[in-house]
């Protein structure tokens, strides 16, 4: 009898926590995304459905839906939800898209892209992170994501060209092979900023042989002026 009571309590707990995460995710979308400038319905629905808490370390689960990046070990972070949504909105993935991601990290960004696009190829340079992301993606049923452990510098030539490339582990120069593997008129997005910093997003667009970049700093930073007294 005691075992049944314990089992019942445990199930209640699971149910209640599940409820909490669902509510937290709803609130995250409402307050952190809709209240800012995420207007793309597909992206909003995706952010509502991808369980972010499944991609963070256990001790960070309670903070999974906070409006900030979180440490995931190995000196890496899972980006702030808004940044993930914003990056997804910028590349505007279509159902037929083939997307390359450099820097799998937690696997959360790949999961968000995989909800929308046909296939996501993602490369992670840190073995521990690659293994953990692989497990999280498999456990959550993302069969259209292919992970590879290795150096993303050379891209994934056998799967190229790509409609979009998401670089989550920015280097101080954009690897020339990635520019080559981008389709004409393709988009590449790169967040620039050290862990926990406000990241400045940069869009790279291939126009023929020319390459253009646009800074998309999500927080419209203009010189602050004191209130006139």
């Amino acid at each position, binding site marked *: 009898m005691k075992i049944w009571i314990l089992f019942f309590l445990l199930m209640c707990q699971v149910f209640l926590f599940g409820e909490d995460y669902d509510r937290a995710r709803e609130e995250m979308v409402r307050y952190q995304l809709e209240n800012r400038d995420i207007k793309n319905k597909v992206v909003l629905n995706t952010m509502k459905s991808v369980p972010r808490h499944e991609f963070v370390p256990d001790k960070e689960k309670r903070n999974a839906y906070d409006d900030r990046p979180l*440490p995931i070990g190995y000196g890496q972070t899972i980006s702030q939800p808004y940044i993930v949504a914003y990056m997804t909105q910028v590349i505007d993935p279509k159902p037929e898209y083939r997307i390359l991601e450099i820097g799998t990290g937690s696997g959360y960004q790949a999961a968000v892209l995989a909800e929308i696009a046909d296939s996501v190829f993602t490369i992670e*340079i840190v073995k521990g992170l690659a293994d953990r992301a692989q497990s999280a993606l498999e456990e959550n049923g993302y069969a259209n994501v292919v992970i590879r452990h290795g150096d993303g510098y050379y891209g994934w030539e056998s799967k190229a060209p790509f409609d979009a490339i998401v670089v989550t582990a920015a280097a101080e*120069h954009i690897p020339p092979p990635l*520019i080559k593997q981008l389709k004409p008129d393709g988009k590449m997005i790169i967040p620039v900023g*050290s862990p926990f*910093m406000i990241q400045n997003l940069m869009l790279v667009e291939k126009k023929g042989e020319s390459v*253009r970049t646009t800074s998309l700093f999500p927080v419209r930073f203009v*010189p602050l002026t004191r209130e006139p007294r």
Partner: protein
Amino acid sequence: MNDTASRRNISLGLLSGAIIAYQIALMNAFSLIQWDHFASMMISLALLGFGAGGTVLTLFKTWLTDRQAVIIPLLMILCAFSLALAFPLSRTDGIRFDSYLLLTGGEQILRFILTANLLFLPFFFGGLAIGMLFTVRVKSISTLYAFNLAGSGVGGILVLLLFSRFEPHHIPILLASIPLAAGLLYPKKRAWQLLYAAGGFTLLTILLVFFSFPEPSPSQFKGIRSALQLPEAQCVYEKPTPYGYLQIVKSPALRYAPGLSLQYRDPIPSRPVLFSNGNQRGPLAEFPSENTHHLYEWSTLNLPYTLRKPDKILILNAGTGDLVSHALSHHPKQIIACESNEGILLAIKGFYGENTPFASPLVNIHISDAYTYLLSTRETYDLIQLPVLGTFGGSSGLDALEEHYSLTLEAFETMWQRLEPDGMISVSTWMDYPSRYPLRILTTLKRLTGEDPFRHLAAIRNWNMITFLMKKTPLSSREIQTIKTFSDSLDFDVVLLPAGNRDSSSYTHHQLQNSSFFHAVEAILGNNEDSFSEEYPFRIQPARENSPYFSQFLKPGRIHEIMDYLSRDALPFLELGYLILILTFIVVTLIAVILIIVPLIFHQPGVFHSKRTLLYFSGLGLAFMFVEIVLIQRFILFFGNPLYAASAVISGILIFSGAGSYFSTRLESSRQTITYVSAGISVFLLLLALGLTPVLKAVIHYPFILKIFISLLIVGPVAFLMGIPFPLGLKRLNQTNPADISWAWGINGCLSVISSVLAAILAVEIGFTGVMIIAAILYLGVLSSEF
């Protein structure tokens, strides 16, 4: 002096030396596993030990002094025992904190406080032992104080020798043997079996910990950790040096190409990278090949070389030789490379042999701080080039408290004087968000010429880097056209060119989200820089040699405003370094007040004369540390090397203060004597505040040995006098109110705790001269506190 007294004095000297050495060893170890922010915390913890020791003495004076013959050596052994264990325990999983995570939640703050308390224990036991000795032997206070200071001075030098021999995490454990020796040497009249047993057990602990304590991992956010996680990464060179722990890491994934054009389509070659204390110092540069173009010809860094071929080039803070290699590829007649960290040059030579750019017969190396070199030479150059400033993607302000003398306005003015009539200064910085680095460089460059700076300035940028060029003569129309052609060919945007040569179509390749950066540039170069700087939420005015914190942009008064505007969670990581200092100040002040002041307030309430004691000893506690910190900073510039400066000043101050203290045995502890001494110190400090920098600059080119002599000549007299008021005050207190001796000791310790961190904050806010003037006023305040 009889044998017992000699043994007591030597024990005290050993203990004092171990404590100062432990403090410096902790600074070194923490700068490797975390960052440099904890230097002032270690000083505070050391002083906190003394303050808390004074409080315990006050509360349990009778009980302790009755058993002093056993307790003093036992405390020395306990100091050794805790010294062996404190640092290793602080690195265990449950206690270890990470600077980067400090502001992410309460758990990390708790770990930070736990770590502080653990590291504090050896200081507490040592401080209590010294305090007890001073209390029970107050008649010999001057001799004891002299041994205390002299021992500290020797300890400061000894630990520097250990830095080149042992890994940083082993040094604190090794040092534990010194207080153990002090405890065993101390004259024992009673319970010697207990003391020897405790000593034997401690020795066993030291050996066990030394051989079993694994090398602690640096913070997961440090460059070395990321590099070692790369495929096929291996550390191919490791060497402890007095300048830091040097490592070279190789991996096919380590590639570096700052400011590179997106038109460059070949793979970037991988290069080994040098790390100092876990922080990336740059990729190792090989001797440039004759047959291939240098990679940087496709970079914004090539801007000065597009205008003409400079014959004589000065590369400041040359580091791993990247810019030297680039300069060599342009075949100049001579290159002068300045680097203050000799260890880096030795590491490169050890790794590459003669295949380094530094081995070229065209390259003359000067091991010196860049600004120190500029002051000590009269040579002129066609091109002066600085390394890339800032960190790609931003550093979260982690280098905010590093002194960069070579980036001060005075340094740039000196560079300007060292240019040939047609010479150029070139400096590049990563673009940051919100913009800080480029704007501060601009406000600095603008001041170099009395004419319209627009005529002398050019700047080009790619997507993440901006390169400035400031030419001594106005840019000619041919040069302007050359810059435009170069930028167009590599898809760079022109940010600055003389008026009339730039329009909005210049920003076509790398668009920013809005034009605020360009408005800032226009405001700075226009007539309303002052009002713009005032309104801008970050400091962008030039750094000055009086407060050489180029990377400190945070305006404390605007924190709330920026947090409201950006994001409450994001701001701390925009300017983390200064906030860590403020957090440290709050934590150590709270601990100091709780451990020292609160018990003293509740002990013997209503003792009114102790307020005068408070004023006297707190003034001394604050001022002494202020003077020490400012002198170290001033001498960094003089020697061109922080290590020499710290050693010369700390050891000089301690040894001369010790001599002053010893001399005070011959002085009457009268009010008149204290007045004369304090007035003398104040006058000296005011002279140093106003005249030290010009004097040091005038003799900066003297040979090293002569510089050492000059530094002792400057530090000696004031340090000698500063050694007098404390023992003289204690002696006077012994005559007027002996019950207050330990109270005075505690107050002095508490204020010393606060002063070390406070001095760092004040140096940022009001500069070194201001801190020195405050120290002079504090010594004058001592005069008014008759007790």
